[in-house]
């Protein structure tokens, strides 16, 4: 099988990807693994507020045609050059997902191109693998909506460990609201900057359960305790950010290490919005070095939800024969990573 990215023989495959499962709206175009464009527009709420489905959907509806035009212009690509229209089928928030999918379905019919529904988590994984060159890593996928430790095994991205309640990004975002930290550019980014100035480590509950983690305990603890700790001057807001990060990231590194020990893996790839966090990357790097393993991570272009990652996963799926008929192009809020048949990798994980 030709393993090169279409440099000789088969014609290059160009895929456009639509992503809008949360508050980030992105449209990206990929040609045989090369990112031609990847514009994004984020719905940012005032400090102290989270984003709700209806308002997020309105945001996506208001901006998607502009972002789509940008994607085509920046890539210098015309509709007829596109081979496949990929969109996020799920998981995510219902109304925003559908707002994005409607446009994907429309252009697919307008341009007479096949449609492909993509799993959001797999988008992150495939973009991470493409950008970093990691061959067969244990993947830590951490974002506002998801926290999973994933490894490829026999045609599936199997979930070895995950949160049994809320995602780590959700925990961080909700804590940011308690302290009224700005959501611009994202609450997690601002917590990270504040944490860098924190010094004191507050004792917080640690929730590792076997290969899984639990964050609702630490969140409710710190939500309750924050005000009294600040009032009694036992901690500054920076100390609280620092303590929360150190604790939740240690939990994530621990379950990742367990999965690596279980699988005998020497590579770890961090994807998802929380993966941008440099402290998390640093901690993972220390753990990996002690085991003789390597850490792979991407920058905010690809960590954070974007259209190109959907296009990349779509590229893999399309070239191995997947297509989503219009009648099946619905969206779903719940879509497990291990539900997808990974037809583009063989039993040992090599590309097909």
């Amino acid at each position, binding site marked *: 099988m030709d393993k090169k990215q279409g440099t000789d023989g088969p014609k290059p495959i160009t895929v456009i990807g639509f992503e809008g499962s949360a508050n980030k709206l992105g449209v990206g175009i990929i040609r045989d693994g090369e990112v031609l464009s990847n514009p994004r527009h984020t719905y940012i709420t005032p400090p102290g507020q*989270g984003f709700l489905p209806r308002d997020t959907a309105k945001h996506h509806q208001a901006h998607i045609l502009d972002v789509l035009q940008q994607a085509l212009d920046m890539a210098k690509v015309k509709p007829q050059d596109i081979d496949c229209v990929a969109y996020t089928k799920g998981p995510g928030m219902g109304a925003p997902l559908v707002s994005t999918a409607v446009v994907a379905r429309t252009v697919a019919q307008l341009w007479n191109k096949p449609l492909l529904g993509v799993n959001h988590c797999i988008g992150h994984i495939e973009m991470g693998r493409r950008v970093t060159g990691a061959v067969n890593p244990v993947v830590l996928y951490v974002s506002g909506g998801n926290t999973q430790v994933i490894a490829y095994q026999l045609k599936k991205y199997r979930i070895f460990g995950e949160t049994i309640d809320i995602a780590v990004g959700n925990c961080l975002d909700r804590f940011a609201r308690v302290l009224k930290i700005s959501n611009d550019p994202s609450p997690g980014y601002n917590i990270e900057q504040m944490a860098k100035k924190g010094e004191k480590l507050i004792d917080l509950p640690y929730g*590792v359960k*076997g290969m899984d983690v639990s964050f609702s305990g630490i969140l409710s603890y710190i939500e309750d305790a924050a005000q009294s700790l600040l009032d009694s001057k036992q901690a500054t807001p920076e100390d609280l950010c620092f303590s929360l990060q150190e604790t939740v990231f240690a939990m994530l590194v*621990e379950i990742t290490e367990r999965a690596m*020990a279980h699988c005998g893996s020497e590579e770890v790839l961090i994807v998802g919005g929380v993966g941008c966090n440099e402290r998390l990357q640093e*901690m*993972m790097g220390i753990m990996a070095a*002690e085991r003789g393993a390597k850490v792979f991570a991407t920058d905010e272009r690809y960590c954070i939800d974007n259209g190109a990652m959907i296009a990349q996963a779509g590229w893999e799926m399309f070239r191995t024969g997947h297509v989503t008929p219009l009648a099946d192009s619905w969206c779903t809020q719940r879509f497990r990573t291990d539900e997808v048949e990974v037809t583009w990798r063989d039993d040992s994980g090599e590309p097909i």
Partner: protein
Amino acid sequence: MADKMEDSPSLAVQQSRERGSGDSSVSSSNMAEIPTVVQIIERQAASGESSAAGGGTGPPGSLHHPGFVLFKQGAEARLYRGTFLGRPTVLKERFSKKYRHPRLDEKLTTKRTQGEARTVARARKAGIPTPCIYFVNYQSNCIYMEDLRCATTSRDYIVAVQSVGAGDSFRALQPIMDKIGKILATMHDGDIIHGDLTTSNIMLKQDASATDPEVVLIDFGLSSVSQLAEDKGVDLYVLEKAFLSTHPNTETLFRVILKSYTKHSRKSKDVIKKLDEVRLRGRKRTMVG
């Protein structure tokens, strides 16, 4: 991997015919294909292999523990074998994890060592077979415990049986699953939460004189004491996930554990209900905060 006792072509033909027809009658030639626990234990002792997932390389015969030899390095602890007070001993040394903040690291390491020692004592009082703890050094986070001679992990045994691929691997494993369910029921009825149930932490011990293997639980580092059905449900959930991810297509086997657990536990109804709830959580998670 398994012992194949094929001493003649005609025997091999008979075996394959019986396997193919799904014949459920027990014939000695068929059962001979499935390794016994004792066979696995002996094979591992001879070759020095074990559940080596994540085995790292550490210095043999550590300077810090004269007389002890490193035989396994896990993510959190190193295991050494040696003699202590004249008894064959396993030394479990929890080491510091440098990626963690030093205060968090110290807190976790000490808590886990102490927790392990205390919970093992409590478990033994409740009648749960675990290695006997001889000594704990809280400064170095070292636990000196009984070396389980003649034992293998249920993980290794299940893998060995399944790799033979014969139709009655289920029947060979079922009695062991029954025992595991019973031990877990006793443990939870004693309000002990193991916290890290995997098939690598459930040992099968059988010396040559015993007729059946004994189930022994190890690695209580994440354990706690709790009356809550939620905690017990999560404990079973952790085992279910570990079980199914390590041993594909063993759903029916795992159900034997749950059935035995329900039969032997006085408080199983709420626990199983919580287990069902936790299973669904992975599928019902919403993103809205």
